[in-house]
């Protein structure tokens, strides 16, 4: 059975800290891994990773994939209170010809001033 496991489940830091969020996955027919940020309700897309060892970067956020170890990390540097959210990792199961997302439980990040 496909599964995605995230750690830690929650994290509390102070502004300016750097955080690393972890995602391990076991997805049949793996093709990509996605990171979403969920504030309030709607998950918003952050990154899609398909190739091992290639870092994707957007501002203070970066992510990398290790296909051999079935693992991905999301880094946030110089955290701000606006980074407080739940960060979701997902692996698409596209065996049916469409991307059914299998999500982890998420990491709830709280950034305090």
């Amino acid at each position: 059975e496909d599964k995605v496991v995230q750690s830690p489940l929650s994290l509390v830091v102070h502004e300016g800290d750097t955080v690393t969020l972890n995602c391990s996955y076991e997805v049949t027919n793996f093709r990509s891994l996605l990171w979403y940020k969920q504030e309030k309700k709607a998950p918003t897309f952050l990154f899609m990773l398909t190739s091992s060892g290639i870092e994707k970067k957007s501002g203070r956020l970066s992510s990398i994939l290790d296909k051999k170890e079935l693992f991905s990390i999301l880094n946030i540097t110089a955290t701000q209170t606006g980074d407080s959210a739940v960060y979701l990792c997902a692996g698409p199961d596209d065996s049916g010809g469409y991307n059914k997302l299998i999500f982890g439980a998420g990491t709830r990040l709280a950034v305090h001033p």
Partner: protein
Amino acid sequence: GAGVSQSPRYKVAKRGQDVALRCDPISGHVSLFWYQQALGQGPEFLTYFQNEAQLDKSGLPSDRFFAERPEGSVSTLKIQRTQQEDSAVYLCASSLAVLGSGRALLTDTQYFGPGTRLTVL
């Protein structure tokens, strides 16, 4: 442009009532997904539409759950005889999903709506 919208944003139902949740996907998006997110958990797949065709309903938890997308745009998720365990946030997502050779493109990003928080008393 407009994103995915859902209504209502909040719904409180008494146990046994029927509810209907609406999703307006991004215009032109072929694929539409419904997910259920329980408190403290990640979203879980419920059902998938390609245009008006419901191609996968394997995630629907019981036959009390029914979804439709009759004209290939707006979708409705209906829950009959609601139970307390149905309380969750129901998320809708759409994607452009230009399929090729039966496989979804790697770049097929799903865009989520704000969800409907259903509370069953």
